[in-house]
């Protein structure tokens, strides 16, 4: 790694740590406010584990597993009455950490050319996406819709169809073994 690339990699690494911290601390705060110390403890352990595993650098994708773990804990937190806003911030930050960690992994061991431009483009796009996600999520939390069972059923079918289409396209994109 050349000299001008080193600060970029370090900067990305710090951004990952900050995002992990935010992804854990936001729902943790919500859990504490909802008096769910057990959930807060689990979230703290998940965050510490994520950071520790990143340092260890095992062969399997740590961040993907950590993201799923955090998401699972957020679902439990949502069911336990933790405020939706905390969870939304936690989920968005966890996704940012997952994305930044992938960038950091790609930087590891490679020469980085135009590192400043690469990093600027990345964080600008990420910040935009995170802001949009928070705004849309916040809007969805603020708006209250009363749906009957039939509407719910139709919406669920639409959601399944959209998710199925996306998954099928992504599977088609995977290169053959």
């Amino acid at each position, binding site marked *: 790694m*050349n000299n001008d690339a080193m600060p970029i990699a370090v900067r990305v690494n710090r951004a990952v740590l900050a995002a992990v911290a935010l992804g854990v601390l936001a729902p943790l705060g919500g859990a504490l406010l909802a008096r769910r110390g057990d959930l807060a403890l689990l979230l703290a352990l998940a965050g510490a584990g994520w950071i520790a595993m990143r340092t260890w650098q095992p062969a399997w*994708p740590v961040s*993907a597993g950590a*993201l*799923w773990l955090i*998401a699972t804990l*957020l*679902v439990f937190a*949502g*069911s336990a009455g*933790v*405020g*939706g806003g905390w*969870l*939304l911030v936690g*989920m*968005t930050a966890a*996704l940012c950490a997952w*994305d930044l960690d*992938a*960038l950091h992994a*790609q*930087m*590891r*061991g*490679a*020469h*980085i*050319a*135009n590192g400043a*431009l*690469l990093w600027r*483009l*990345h964080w600008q*796009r*990420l910040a*935009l*996406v*995170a802001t*949009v*996600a*928070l705004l*849309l*999520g916040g809007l*969805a*939390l603020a708006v209250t819709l009363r749906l009957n069972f039939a509407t*719910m059923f139709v*919406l*669920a079918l639409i*959601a*399944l169809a959209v*998710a199925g289409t*996306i*998954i099928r396209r*992504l*599977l088609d*994109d*995977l*290169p053959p073994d």
Partner: protein
Amino acid sequence: MNPNADHVEAAGRALRLAMLAGALLLIGLALVNPAVSVLAIPALVFLAAALLRRPAGAGTLHLQRIVGKPTIRSQGESAVTLTLTNHGDMLERVYVSDPSAGQLALVSGEAQALAALAPGATLELRYVLRAPRGAHPLLPVTLVGGETLGLFPWQIALEDGARLTALPEAERVREVAIRPLTTRGFAGPIIARRSGSGTDFFGVREYRMGDALRHVNWRALARHGDQPYTTEFSQEQIADVGLVLDVRAQQDFVVAGQSLLERAIQATAGMAEVLLAEGHRVALLQYGIGSYVPAGYGRLQRNRIFYSLAETGSTPLRAFYSLKWLPTQLFPPRSQMIFISPLMTDEYTMLFRLRAVGYTVAVVSPDPVAFEAAALDPRDPLTAPAIRLARIERQLQIRKLQAGGITVVNWDVRGDLNQSLQRVLRPALLAPPLVRGGR
């Protein structure tokens, strides 16, 4: 990093993200809990943003790989320059990698890079590769790119047909003393056993009109007094030499990562070099892969032989399992043949047959016993008797060949080939010729 794995990983990331969004949505709907359903929104926004910025491919990228020295010596180094130019829109993230650096040895520089390329910008990678003997087609350069979030990558492998050929190291040989039964009509180093313009004494005959005065034998004139005599010199000519390198799998022998075949190749290269430098017409047959370099002279032939040796390797082809299928018609009758083989199997009837039909046969044999003995544990009580038995067996084999009129150079590969050749081939030259005359 393996770009292919990176591509699979990146595509897998998008899939995992879609599955996460779907799962959160379904769980939220099932629990009728809006706080859980809303968790799917960030994941969906990430996916949508990546889909919107999904690039079509790398159509506007121009990549060039220049190999500084396409031909090097074995374990030599060659500088490679990889230039990637973006002729299209802003490329937010591209990973370029030359997998050849993993296949060969990367000595210095960077053979993989991650970059953002502005329109018209160029990324240049300079690195130095080291290659062992062989013809190495360089692997296609891999480009993995995509939008900033890296969820929908494209990957291309650019094949440019670049090659790096590492020629074998030639053993240092100063002379290969040979004496075939026939020579060719051009001046060279082999005494042709007929009078001519050489330097070695051939005989004395009566003076004829036109003989140079400096060749008049004054002693003979003084002794006989009646008529002058002329001293004749032996003509020196070049010869046809056929090198036969035994590359059959059963003759290859690897000990501690070192191959005996590699040393045989180096010996062949050294002998070819010196024989061609002396002006001989040299052909090379690699028995085992059927590779044949027809007879030729000079530097061009040297290059042909070296390139052929660069590509060689042992092979278990059944067609060449036995020596009895050696295609003798490739070599001129009564010429010199040098068979390079460790003699690890006892089936050399063909060599005797060659000798019988008039070829002058010499065997240069890298010694497999000494080669393996050097790697054995001397503290093992079985080592010493085992080596002794193997040496006895080899000596018997060599004597059998020598008894058949074949000159055998038993070369301990830890030592100097030149000395081994001098020790055996020089005395062989002093033996009386079996047949007189030349072509």
